[in-house]
């Protein structure tokens, strides 16, 4: 009799858990679903109310943002439309990748120094760097704009890469420092006893063992930088702006191209998805590196 009671309880518990999970996921993923369907709907379908869940899909939106659609001008010459998407992607990649590379070059040694240093002011320095993340960009954007225009840095890759350090450097530094602190110092000491220099220890021991942290930090920094809108919008103009800002150009005075905006959203998110999948392995191995733990 007891066994039956237990069974009944279990089945009900399982069912209700699953229902709650399905509902939560539906709620969270709904906007993604909505945008995705908007990107493949015809314009009338987008605007109808009640919204259509079954419709005839079209790839016209994606063709347009990729510049594949041809328009015939008044003179009869037909050419492809300008692809804000491709311009944006190029800019995003240039800016964000450079940002990350510079943050890694500066941040990894800094993280090591902050992990192992015996300086009394160590924690203060680390916290100061982290505090850059607390300031909302909106606070600093106006002074930055004035400053950059005065020194001729308006609308250049250089200025964006520089400003993006405010986002990526503290993130990489804090995450990687944590991982480096977790490496037992005896392993580094073993390297010293074995006769190796500090540099060798940094490149051959510390960095490989902090792989998980570096991957995690890089991924997070990449995501935040890629998603940034404000700096690109205010400090740059159309030829330098990243893809997030380029999406705005489909809101024209003539028409609001909902479908194309939705398509560019999907397109902009794709690189992030690919990167996460690629780095996921490192993240997991970094978290489960049991050999380090005692």
């Amino acid at each position, binding site marked *: 009799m007891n066994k039956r009671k237990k069974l009944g309880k279990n089945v009900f518990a399982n069912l209700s858990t699953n229902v709650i999970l399905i509902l939560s996921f539906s709620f969270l993923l709904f906007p993604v679903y909505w945008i995705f369907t908007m990107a493949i709907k015809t314009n009338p379908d987008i605007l109808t109310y009640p919204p259509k869940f079954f419709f005839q899909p079209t790839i016209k939106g994606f063709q347009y943002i990729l510049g594949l659609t041809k328009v015939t001008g008044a003179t009869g010459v037909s050419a492809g439309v300008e692809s804000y998407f491709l311009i944006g992607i190029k800019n995003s990649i240039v800016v964000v990748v450079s940002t990350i590379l510079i943050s890694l070059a500066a941040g990894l040694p800094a993280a090591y120094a902050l992990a192992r240093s015996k300086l009394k002011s160590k924690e203060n320095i680390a916290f100061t760097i982290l505090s850059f993340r607390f300031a909302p960009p909106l606070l600093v954007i106006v002074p930055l704009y004035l400053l950059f225009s005065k020194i001729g840095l308006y609308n250049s890759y250089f200025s964006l890469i520089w400003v993006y350090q405010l986002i990526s450097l503290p993130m990489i530094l804090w995450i990687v420092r944590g991982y480096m602190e977790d490496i*037992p110092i005896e*392993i580094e000491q073993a390297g010293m*006893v074995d006769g190796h220099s500090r540099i060798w220890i940094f490149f051959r021991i510390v960095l490989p063992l902090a792989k998980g942290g570096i991957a995690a930090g890089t991924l997070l920094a990449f995501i935040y930088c890629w998603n940034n809108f404000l700096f690109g919008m205010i400090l740059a103009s159309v030829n330098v702006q990243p893809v997030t800002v380029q999406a705005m150009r489909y809101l024209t005075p003539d028409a609001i191209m909902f479908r194309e905006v939705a398509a560019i959203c999907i397109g902009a998110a794709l690189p992030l998805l690919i990167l996460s999948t690629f780095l996921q392995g490192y993240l997991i191995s970094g978290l489960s590196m049991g050999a380090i733990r005692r």
Partner: protein
Amino acid sequence: MPKILLKNVTKKFKKVVALNNLSIEINDGEFFIILGPSGAGKTTFLNVIAGLEKPENGEIYFDGDLINNITTAKRDIALTAENYALYPHFTVFNNIATPLRSSANKNRYNTKQIREKVDRITKMLNINDLLGRMPSELSGGQKQRVALGRALVKEPKVLLLDEPLAHVDAKIRNQLRTEFHFLKEKFQTTTIYTSHDYKEAISLGDRIMFLNKGEIQQIGIPEIIYNFPKNTTVALNVGWPEINLFDCSVNFKNSQLYCPKGDFIYNISGNVLKYLKIYGKSEYIVGARPQHISFSDKPSDIYNLKAICGTSEVYDNQTVFYVKIKNLDLTILVNDPDLSLMLEQELWLGFDDQSLIFFDKETNENVKLKK
């Protein structure tokens, strides 16, 4: 010339004195053991000799050369840490080969030579079949051998071993301890080995230094440390079960000692009395090792102290009895695992008074070692 010489070495961590003004000589080829409870300063001692910590004060000499300012990498030492500190992302082979590939190495070895050296060492340590494995795939005992291999492969001048058997399973620990005897023979390197286990110390050590709270309590050969502990701290930490300690007063006229806690009088022999008389005092702390107390179920001349038997435990090859004489608790060790006594049974105890150790009540020091 001593191989290693320390002069007045002091190491502090903020306000805590980890090593207090130590001066020691360690000889060439000696297997020198530092014995002490946790927190005594054993790891700090090794780290100072390795150069991983800088002492606030004092000098360290290797073969007569001052090495205070020589970096760890150039000191020609090898160190195994308590948790082995193997490189988790290197194979066993690469772990052991690392010291041979370093820039500070006096010799430059090519790939073939490295392979030969690693092969030789791993064969000696019985880990030759593990070369391709990663540290996370090894058992505690195997990790320990790999750590040893990495230390021995570069044939260092000084070998530093930090509690090598502390984290190994009890069963394997005894086997490895015995194996260390063979390794000791083969390598003959000047070695400093730390432990909190007195059995390891007295089994393996050429000389033992008992360290407590950063201070040297005693240095000597194993037999001396065990049979003539310098003070009650050493006596309590060396030997199991713990030595029985109780206050006594000596009556020189009647050749007796009186223990107030147990309210008993015991006759002691003439030659024991002799050196107590020379020492001069009449109040002592008496130490009686559990194996030096014997008993009988009937009273006699030798067994004349009445005691009540408490619980007992069998440990491997011996039985431990907890007995009580009035208010005095005593532990007795018998080399017979099959002996059992009834609870509350009456026993008559006798001390082997030649093996009783007398400590000065004020200084806690062994009377026999004060000349």
